[in-house]
């Protein structure tokens, strides 16, 4: 059990309170009236009332016996969607170690303002997330911020150096939902094989982002016509597929549960498809920006399309879209990497890769639904139930009696534009400024507490 820390005399709640938002109301009994409640995995798509108490969903339709209506905050949510809160399994919050870019407080607010209730953070923090102490620190900071739930992904190797195994059993006992070497390679294949074997012993999920450091060396853009034309050092598709094929060969022997993070190419999708058809315990994710952008969006005037893995061809993008639709790709991540503005103020190859992605994760995926490229069921599954099941968040990502009340209320028909005023994240590095979206989060609950609501959103009454 994690205790609140003593007051160390430091600013423990540096949360910005942007206009239209305010901190949560300290109430844990809620009645959300009349929303279209959607949870595809429970075949649920109906307008009904949802009762929340003690952090759980305690009733749907009719009030449960013990529910005291007079004590409940009521929300009139007619015309809105109530969905399970989004689970983003790969988001960097920059704390600890890079607080000049962002903090847990700023980024968890950005998350709940865009329907995300759980964030899994990769282990490439500073210090590296290879001890339970760091995992606890992160959890404590998230509790103090009081917004989204934050869970840690522990390190696969000590210091992410790819030399010695991290204490993965202890890390998972200490609350880590998976382990990973982030984007750092494990060059020694024997060590990688042993790491996977060891993880398999305890049925620990291993998240791997396949990128061969030598094939990707100096590269900053997809090796293709645009990189050739702009003179940008290229990253070939084989930088992704070569290590992925090696990994799949090892998984066939070790049987560890592997989640391939952040796919970028059509060829990698094919490898995943084949591995799945052979029954290997492999799942995969794609970032929301890879579903919308391609090398054609490379803008040398601005580093906001410099991401890792790179934005590839339109064919690759379309393959990622259809793989998400047919379930070959299981989940969508934000791959959130907030940066200070200086990190992107340089010639394209010299900018730091990564974009601020939290606030466009849900809107971009729902935009695919609007365009008829994805069913609403698959879209919500990929953002909620599927990641919850993969990362062992067994009571999250669903709307059913007894489930954790992590919920997002979405206005499905409000035109809004992402711009400097609507973006909450401390990282302003998004290529989606100026994009129009239709779905906007109006309120968010985590653990039965309202952690966000938009002033022009649902009507509140008591």
């Amino acid at each position, binding site marked *: 059990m994690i205790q609140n820390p003593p007051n160390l005399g430091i600013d423990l709640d540096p949360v910005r309170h942007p206009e239209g938002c305010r901190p949560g109301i300290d109430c844990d009994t809620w009645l959300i009236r009349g929303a279209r409640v959607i949870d595809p995995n429970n075949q649920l798509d109906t307008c009904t009332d949802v009762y929340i108490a003690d952090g759980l969903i305690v009733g749907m339709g009719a009030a449960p016996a013990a529910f005291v209506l007079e004590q409940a905050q009521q929300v009139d949510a007619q015309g809105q969607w109530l969905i399970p809160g989004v689970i983003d399994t790969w988001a960097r919050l920059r704390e600890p170690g890079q607080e000049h870019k962002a903090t847990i407080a700023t980024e968890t607010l950005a998350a709940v303002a865009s329907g995300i209730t759980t964030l899994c953070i990769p282990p490439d923090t500073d210090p590296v997330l290879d001890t339970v102490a760091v995992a606890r620190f992160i959890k404590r900071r998230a509790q103090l911020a009081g917004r989204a739930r934050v869970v840690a992904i522990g390190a696969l190797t000590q210091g992410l150096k790819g030399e010695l195994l991290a204490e993965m059993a202890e890390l998972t006992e200490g609350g880590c939902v998976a382990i990973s070497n982030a984007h750092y390679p494990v060059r020694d294949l024997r060590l990688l094989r042993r790491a996977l074997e060891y993880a398999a012993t305890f049925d620990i999920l291993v998240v791997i982002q396949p990128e061969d450091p030598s094939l990707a060396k100096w590269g900053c853009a997809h090796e293709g*016509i645009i990189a050739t034309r702009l*003179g*940008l050092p290229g990253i070939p598709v084989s930088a992704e597929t070569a290590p992925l094929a090696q990994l799949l060969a090892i998984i066939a022997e070790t049987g560890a549960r592997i989640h391939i993070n952040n796919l970028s190419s059509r060829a990698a999708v094919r490898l995943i498809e084949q591995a799945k058809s052979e029954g290997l315990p492999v799942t995969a994710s794609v970032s929301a920006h890879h579903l919308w952008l391609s090398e*054609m969006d490379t803008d*040398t005037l601005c580093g906001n399309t410099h991401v890792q893995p790179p934005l590839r061809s339109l064919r690759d993008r379309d393959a990622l879209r259809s793989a998400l639709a047919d379930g070959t790709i299981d989940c969508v991540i934000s791959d959130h990497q907030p940066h200070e503005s200086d990190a992107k103020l340089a010639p394209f190859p010299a900018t730091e890769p990564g974009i601020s992605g939290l606030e466009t994760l849900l809107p971009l995926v729902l935009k695919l639904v609007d365009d008829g490229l994805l069913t609403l069921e698959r879209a919500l599954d990929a953002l909620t139930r599927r990641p919850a099941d993969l990362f062992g968040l067994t009571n999250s990502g669903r709307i059913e009696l007894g489930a954790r009340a992590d919920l997002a209320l979405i206005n499905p028909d409000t035109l809004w534009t992402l711009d400097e005023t609507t973006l909450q994240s401390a990282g302003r590095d998004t290529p989606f400024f100026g994009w129009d979206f239709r779905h906007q989060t109006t309120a968010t609950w985590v653990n039965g507490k309202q952690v966000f609501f938009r002033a022009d959103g649902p009507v509140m009454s008591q």
Partner: protein
Amino acid sequence: MAVNFVRPLIPKLATDPWAIQFDAAGHLKHLLTIEGLGSTWITRILDTAEGFMSVSDRDIKKVPLLRGRTVVNLFFEASTRTRTTFELAAKRLSADVLNINLSTSATTKGESLLDTLRNIEAMQADMFVVRHEQSGAAHFIARHAAPHVSVLNAGDGWHAHPTQALLDAFTIRRIKGEFAPLRIAIVGDVKHSRVARSQIHAFNSLNVGELRVIGPRTLIPNDIEPLGVRVYHDMRAGLKDVDIIIMLRLQRERMESGLLPSEQEFYRLYGLTEEKLKWAKPDAIVMHPGPANRGVEIESRVADGPQSVILQQVSNGIGVRMAVMALCMSAES
């Protein structure tokens, strides 16, 4: 002569960074890349350069076009030829010239490119001539420089070296006249060459008959055909019926990174010797953006031979750079 040749099929980017080369009135303000100039602007620059060529032959080699203006040569990468010809061009236009060699100073002290830029801007410069090792650096500087400043790209990473391509086009036009009947071959390390990229755009804009690149697969980038070139890996086939041979400089680090086994093997296969020169048309000319590695990509007897126009390229470079400076500086006035 009719040549069956595919014109470039360059897909349009979501945002065209080259658009910032022009001011609101559509006049050339920065020269960052050949892309977007079209034959009209290229021809205008070449015609203007023709007018400036006589200045170098006068007793007093100066015209007062840029009197009172300050041109700053911002070189983040070592260069002798390009920097001195830019300097000479600015001086012949009567500008004040400041040379700043940054490859060893500010940026190694952790100063950002933007900080450096702001500091030099504070010295009331009117034009930056920029060379930088990163592709896109000149665009970056043009975007962030004060509104009155013109930026000329003197080479950015592997991306562009537009004045080099213009002076090559100028040299070819002086010798051969028309571009349409010509076959041009660019030989060597195309992959890492900003010169080759700018030449490809320039020659295609000028409707050259056929454009070829010749080299081993490691030195020819993927997907280069859509830029409007034919790829040859065999020197003899590639040089057949060619009017212009452009040899590119081969950097020594290419051997270390496994792109080539040795200089000797490269020279044997692709180095321009007197014997290989015979595979091209008898009146073919030989060009090189310099500095040439004799015995690596070109034989001395060819570099100094009657078909070589390498030194003409250098002197033409001054006139072309004067033209570019004069045109860009006339935009804002």
